């Protein structure tokens, strides 16, 4: 195997271990936003779409790169925006101060 591939495998393995550790005890409230947040991160595949677009030289590869680009961009932009909308609930609301807003013990 090439040196590049071996390094890539090392990075891959470590990133998997980080992924296992980075999520610990999450309150159920956050399960959906967290999933949605992780969902936006794999939109990174859009970078891959950009790189294949740069190499494209046949009509087929232009077409594939274009579809990949559209898909990836929708994943990234939509993913982050919808996650942010979900997380708005943790914004401090001045309106909520009216009734019993003391944090639970």
């Amino acid at each position, binding site marked *: 195997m090439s040196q590049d591939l071996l390094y890539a495998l090392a990075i891959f393995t470590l990133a998997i271990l980080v992924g296992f550790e980075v999520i610990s005890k999450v309150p159920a409230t956050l399960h959906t936003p967290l999933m949605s947040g992780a969902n936006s991160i794999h939109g990174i595949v859009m970078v*891959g779409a950009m790189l294949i677009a*740069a190499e494209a030289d046949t009509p087929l590869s232009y077409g594939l790169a274009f579809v990949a680009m559209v898909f990836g961009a929708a*994943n990234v932009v939509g993913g982050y925006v919808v996650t942010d909308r979900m997380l708005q609930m943790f914004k401090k609301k001045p309106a909520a101060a009216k009734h019993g807003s003391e944090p639970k013990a």
Partner: protein
Amino acid sequence: MSQEWIYTTVFLAWLAGAAAFVIGLHQMNSPATARNGNRLSATGMTVAVLTTLFYLLTREGGLRVEALAIIVIGFLLGGGAGLYMARVVKMTAMPQLVSLFNAVGGGAAAIVAIDDYLRVVGTPDETLSTAIFVVLGVVIGCITFTGSLVASGKLQGLSITPSKPVLIPGGRLVTLVLALVALGGLVALVAAAGGAIDLDKTTQTAILGLVILAGLVFGITMVLPIGGADMPVVVSLLNSFTGTAAAMAGFVINNPVLIIAGALVGASGGILTKLMADAMNRSIVNIIAGGFGGGEGTVGAVAGATQVRELGVDDAAIQLAYASSVIVVPGYGLAVAQAQHAVRELAELLEERGVDVKYAIHPVAGRMPGHMNVLLAEANVPYPQLREMEDINPEFERCDVALVVGANDVTNPAARRPGSPVSGMPILDVDRAKSIVVIKRSMGRGYAGIDNELYGNPKTGMLFADAKQGLTDLVSAVKAL
């Protein structure tokens, strides 16, 4: 700048982006930092994307106009569509949108792998490892593409993808055949790349086509037989798959940020899937193998033997208004009726009369874990009033009235006994309250497709109405007291 310097800078910026993903994801573990975490992750993404553009523009040979056009127009089109959908989606429909975004992400990963393979096939760049990662990326990406589309359709309740489990004739055989095709394809393409067998370019491309087809069909046959109640876990699992597919695409095009981000999502998504399944007392294996679920279509069916006590709006209003403590149990019925604002209005009215009001949130209330919190927060329900299940369950005994709005299976005491489809599922101890008011459209069944013993409890009064209408009527009735 020399080419080497440019690449070094680009690589370091990619690394910074990947670090932002890790830290951002970690911050999303806690409510206090979650929003910042998501923004940090979005910043990392922006850095990674802009860096890539910079790299492509400054590298030797530059970027052709056609390629630039594909990148810019593709981004505007896809990003615009994503932005529009994310902005206008009703919070009740958010789970299916997340699944849709997951589908296109998986599709993009598969395409990147396919495109790279078509470029290297028959050239010296076609190595053993490339073939392995291409086939893995293509298979996983294709499965998540169609699988997430089906999951999204099920959550939306489309007629071609009904929420109830759809049994495919000879399902096991079909699955086996598809798996064999994918595996055979992998072996053939790897052997061809390694020089063990001699295949021409056309044959190899055709084999890849077969693998693509097998993956696409497998995604459908995997998700179609699973019931709607389990979709959150399935969507989360497919999300983890997409991460893995992105990492495979990263190996194919030898890009570190794809590998890191993809592996990160693949692993953390797996853990998250496990957490979600645990919260619902389901095992991932059981879900994929098929199990209970579905049955939403039975709304309106009349339950047979259960004797229920029907309650009028005025009686219910009196019970609530003169109680000293009320626990509201919101469920999916409240979400579909868009009744979150009405419930908040009723709660405020009761509080003005000195009633202590809390909300009991089951881990899977709504359609996904945390979904109900989002809906209630949108209606400005104060966050401290929302209590999680373990927290609120001991309080039911002391509460005068439990007001169940459109929640069903999560309140069924049958879950405490073995032998029922809901057995073992964690439930809210609503039946321990001094009295219970249930707002429900009919005696229809929930996802589990069984009768709710709570409704036959002598302490329970049924207020048959649409959640929003029922709550609005209660508000006027309480006002009139």
